[in-house]
């Protein structure tokens, strides 16, 4: 398979759609252990990214599209998720550098770079009850599957499965990053909102890889 900027436009639009559908639920999760705005922030960021990327000329290179997404997300959101996802998109852009079309391999490296970017920006380790608990295992699982020769859709299936497990695992974690880190054991029993939205994004990417036949 290969991925063009046009494909990416559809992907970002699909992500934005799924996040929009989960907006209230994400706010509710954030209301329990944060400040209740995660759904609003993610929705605003994804809509802005989808709009900005959607308006691009399809001839533009993927790297530029990712950078446009980063900037749009960043300007739309002042919350923690703003810099985290803006960094993810910027690293995606760097990973896609100099390519006009992305191969499966490129696409996986883009995915891994996003996870890496989030982790570097937030300085969070797995187990600290953040979106990293979804992103990091997902990226690791996808790379593992790729290295053992699985085709891209199956790599993303593995990623989605790992993200779901990671997301669910946050429920029993204490928080060591973000607003929730100030609540001590009051956070036990609550899923991290950032991990929940990460799962939605990763699932959208998996679906996209599934149905994509470039």
């Amino acid at each position: 398979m290969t991925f063009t900027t046009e494909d990416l436009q559809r992907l970002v639009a699909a992500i934005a759609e799924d996040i929009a559908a989960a907006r209230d639920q994400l706010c509710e999760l954030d209301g329990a252990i944060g400040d209740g705005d995660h759904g609003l922030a993610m929705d605003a960021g994804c809509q802005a990214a989808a709009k900005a990327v959607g308006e691009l000329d399809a001839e533009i290179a993927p790297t530029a599209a990712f950078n446009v997404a980063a900037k749009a997300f960043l300007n739309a959101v002042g919350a923690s998720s703003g810099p985290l996802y803006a960094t993810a998109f910027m690293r995606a852009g760097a990973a896609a550098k100099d390519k006009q079309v992305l191969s499966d391999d490129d696409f996986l490296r883009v995915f891994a770079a996003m996870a890496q970017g989030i982790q570097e920006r937030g300085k969070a380790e797995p187990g600290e009850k953040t979106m990293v608990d979804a992103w990091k295992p997902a990226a690791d699982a996808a790379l593992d599957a790729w290295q053992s020769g699985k085709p891209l859709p199956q790599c993303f299936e593995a990623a989605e499965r790992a993200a779901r497990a990671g997301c669910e695992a946050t429920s029993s974690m204490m928080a060591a990053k973000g607003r929730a880190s100030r609540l001590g054991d009051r956070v036990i029993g609550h899923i991290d909102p950032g991990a929940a939205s990460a799962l939605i994004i990763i699932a959208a990417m998996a679906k996209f890889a599934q149905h994509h036949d470039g």
Partner: protein
Amino acid sequence: MKKFMNTAETMVAESVEGFVRAHEAFVVFGPERKCIRRRHLTLGKVALISGGGAGHEPMHIGFVGHGMLDAACVGHIFTSPTPSQIITAIEEADTGAGCLLVVKNYDGDLMNFEMAIEMAGDHHSLDMVVVSDDIETSRTGEGRGRRGVAGTLIVEKILGAAAERGMPLAELKQLGEGLNTRIRSMGVALNGGTVPQTERMTFALGPDEMEMGVGIHGEPGHARQPFTTSDAIIGHLCETIAGDIAAAPGTKALLFVNGLGGTPPAELYLSYNSARRFIEEKAIPVERSLVGTYVTSLDMQGLSVTLALLTDEEIVLWDAPVATAALHWGGIP
């Protein structure tokens, strides 16, 4: 919810516009209203920039002016400004000597300011001081450490005076970081604040309850307790903050009682009176005082007490003239 506002969506923008119009003699909007800056900048002085979510007024825009900040950015309620806003402030305020960004210790603020520095760092000398004065979050012993609350005012005032005297960027950062280790705050709420967007109180307290150890974003504190006398409440706050910083010999105390938005001046002065007594009982000499509503959490009823242990040089900087909307002194015989 009864608030003086038109719509929840426009509330922050209208309030900030009112601020700029009321103080148009010395502040102006930056391009696209992304920041607020001094009307007249001083060439070659390090620019001091800060910012944070709305809902904490007069912080930080009320600290823009001679002797304190050069520019400030306002985010949505309780939400960091974006890197794009911060970069605009940098571009507006940098007159050649670089910018020091004063950031309160929250993941969201830190990441947005860090990104701004990365994105603008090629064209400006930039550095950052992180303020983390809130006692409470040091208790959990986790996360990125304590929150930044009312003590931020002290850091911005002292760094502002030092910048005015020509202190270079690296020294300013060092001064700010040293200062930050000697400031502690703790807050108490008698009632939550009401967030305009949700029309909900950040937390609701019964008629005989109070929340100990609150921050400035409506986060719950470490304990809900029965309401009691100001001596008991303030005594507990003072005990906790004074117990958390060792009074090095020769340092002098600045005692700051800060209203969280819905507490009237008379109660703040009464609380200061209690606080002053408790701190002095610990043989800590209170040399400077500040009492007022400076760092708020919307309309929250409550207050925080901040203790800062200052060197003689820092006291001089604290006393130096300042002319902002919220803090103004010096220069009169």
